[in-house]
């Protein structure tokens, strides 16, 4: 997969919106439904203006019925449409968990391969806006646990622009995590929207000394840490997992086989996290390549508190990534 040749600067929010617009333009079967996606313009203004552009049949405001409208999205997908269902935030997703886990994830298998469920479910997630315990969840591991789902995480502007378009080509249910704290952040996005048509983990920065394996909000933090590490002569490779299920084991193993060290970074709390799985895979597949124990920097095991200083302390920050990476590489 070659790097896009031309790029422009966009906010993460605008990149998401342009991908939605492309999706709606490309395929008449695509429609967006979610709470406040139309008249309000999206809780985070991601779909602002789309109602005016595409009309109420394709940009559907729905009542506060997460189970109802996610289930309806699944049904519409079964019956020939390509719905994009927005759950306003991951925090409300458990109200629709029955539909996702018991219907979307199982129908292909239970029906002996007869039923495809090409639904895309987007949800905004993450921590960092002082929204306290019920509105700051990092539940990627919860969804990544379930066979039958494909779970994507948008950790870069490039993916904000392109990932949805790939997800819509999938015959199976796809969950996409977007990160609220990144919405205003500007970054480079490719103008060529055809270049990404398969999704695997991606090496965001190459290096030979240590693999920092992360996803979502961890990607830019890890890249910033890698830049700092470079100043002291440590060349960190940063891997953006992008797909949390099924995991791209090949890219992980190839990187660790090269660097012989791994630091796993994510916001979700540490126990039974994506990093737990990545760590186990490294042990199973390339243990003898390791020159140091695999370490994890994950969320602290606590409901997220309101005060900023405590909230910041809940998740890995750039400085910790630098410190721990140095420790692994230099045996400090």
């Amino acid at each position: 997969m070659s790097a896009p040749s031309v790029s422009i600067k966009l906010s993460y929010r605008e990149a998401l919106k342009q991908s939605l617009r492309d999706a709606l333009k490309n395929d008449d079967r695509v429609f967006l439904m979610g709470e406040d996606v139309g008249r309000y313009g999206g809780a985070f203004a991601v779909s602002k203006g789309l109602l005016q552009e595409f009309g109420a049949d394709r940009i559907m405001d729905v009542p506060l019925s997460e189970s109802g409208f996610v289930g309806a999205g699944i049904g519409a997908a079964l019956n020939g449409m390509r719905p994009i269902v927005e759950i306003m935030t991951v925090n409300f997703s458990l109200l629709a968990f029955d539909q996702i886990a018991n219907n979307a994830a199982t129908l292909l298998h239970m029906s002996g391969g007869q039923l495809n469920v090409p639904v895309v479910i987007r949800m905004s997630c993450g921590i960092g806006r002082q929204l306290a315990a019920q509105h700051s969840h990092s539940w990627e591991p919860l969804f990544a646990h379930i066979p039958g789902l494909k779970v994507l995480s948008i950790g870069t502007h490039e993916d904000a622009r392109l990932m949805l378009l790939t997800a819509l080509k999938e015959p199976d249910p796809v969950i996409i995590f977007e990160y609220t704290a990144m919405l205003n952040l500007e970054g480079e996005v490719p103008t060529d929207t055809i270049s990404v048509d398969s999704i695997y983990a991606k090496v965001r920065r190459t290096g030979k000394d240590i693999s920092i394996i992360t996803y979502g909000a961890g990607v830019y933090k890890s890249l910033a840490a890698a830049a700092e590490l470079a100043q002291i002569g440590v060349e960190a490779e940063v891997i953006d997992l992008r797909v949390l299920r099924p995991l791209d084991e090949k890219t992980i193993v190839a990187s660790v086989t090269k660097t012989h060290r791994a630091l796993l970074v994510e916001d979700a709390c540490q126990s039974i996290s994506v990093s737990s799985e990545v760590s186990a895979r490294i042990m199973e597949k390339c243990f003898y390549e390791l020159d140091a124990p695999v370490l994890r920097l994950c969320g602290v095991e606590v409901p997220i508190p309101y005060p900023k200083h405590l909230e910041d302390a809940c998740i890995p920050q750039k400085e910790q990534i630098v410190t721990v990476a140095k420790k692994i590489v230099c045996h400090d």
Partner: protein
Amino acid sequence: MNTKITIENKTSPVDQETAKKLLYQMMFIRRFEEKSAELYTKEKIRGFLHLYVGEEAVAVGIMHALNPGDNLLCTYREHGQALVRGLDPGVIMAEMYGKQEGCCKGRGGSMHLFDVSRKFFGGNAIVAGHLPMAVGMALADKKMKNNQITCCFFGEGAVAEGEFHEAFNLASLWQVPILFVCENNLYAMGTAIRYSHAQTNLELKAAGYNISAGSVDGMDLLAVIQASQHAVEIIQQTGKPYFLVCNTYRFRAHSMFDAELYREKQEVEVWKKRDPIPAFSKLLLEHQLVTEQAIKELEKKIDMEIQQAVDFAEAGTWEPIDQLTNFVYSNSII
């Protein structure tokens, strides 16, 4: 020959051939379920097995009003609907055996019969979980301007679930062509309706969602046919949802694990006197639409067909274990 059968001022046009077909369908379901119970005790069928005995007039009556192109979603007590939809009895039986010749290659079992070619979308075993999906299927038809309806069966237990209420609101809000059929057999597993619902006249719940509704004696086949034909007409004319409550009773236990501690034997006996099959047979005999001899021949034919189904399932094969992880994902780009 077109004969009109009239009972209690209800008129339903049922010709002789149709009458015989309807009787055959009810008798077939009954016998199929009895055979299934027998095979369960022989440990040929495992897992959960929910039988439709006593409720046959509901599936047969409702589905008489539907077209083959209409989407159908059912509960885990769905053998009857699957048979009426035309799934091969042998293929259903093979599914219940867990054999790869089953309609879902044995992956689903009794509670998860699917046949996409017949628009038969389960076999759904989370109570009320399929209602939102049914609304979505109807929404897709509306968007694509397909001229068909979606029919969704559920028990009265589902009416207490949040998904029932969300689905009803969405269906009405979006004005989608869907027939909601409540098979009210009075017990949500072992909990009687009076312990589940503050309002036991379930059809009244539709008013809160601005949905037209009716209720019917689910033991009376002709009444069910008439009510469902009326419902389907309204849906076709208006494009809006309709809620039909069929008051019925299951004669057997909830599942094969149920010791039936929650109801009196006498209550079951009282309902058995209203068994829809003898009642409909009697009616057809009275109107000379069928003879005793013809019914006996039907019984014989059904026994033979069910034996063939069992033979088919017995002869079926187990899916090789190396195919275990098939159908978790399709071939895809992620």
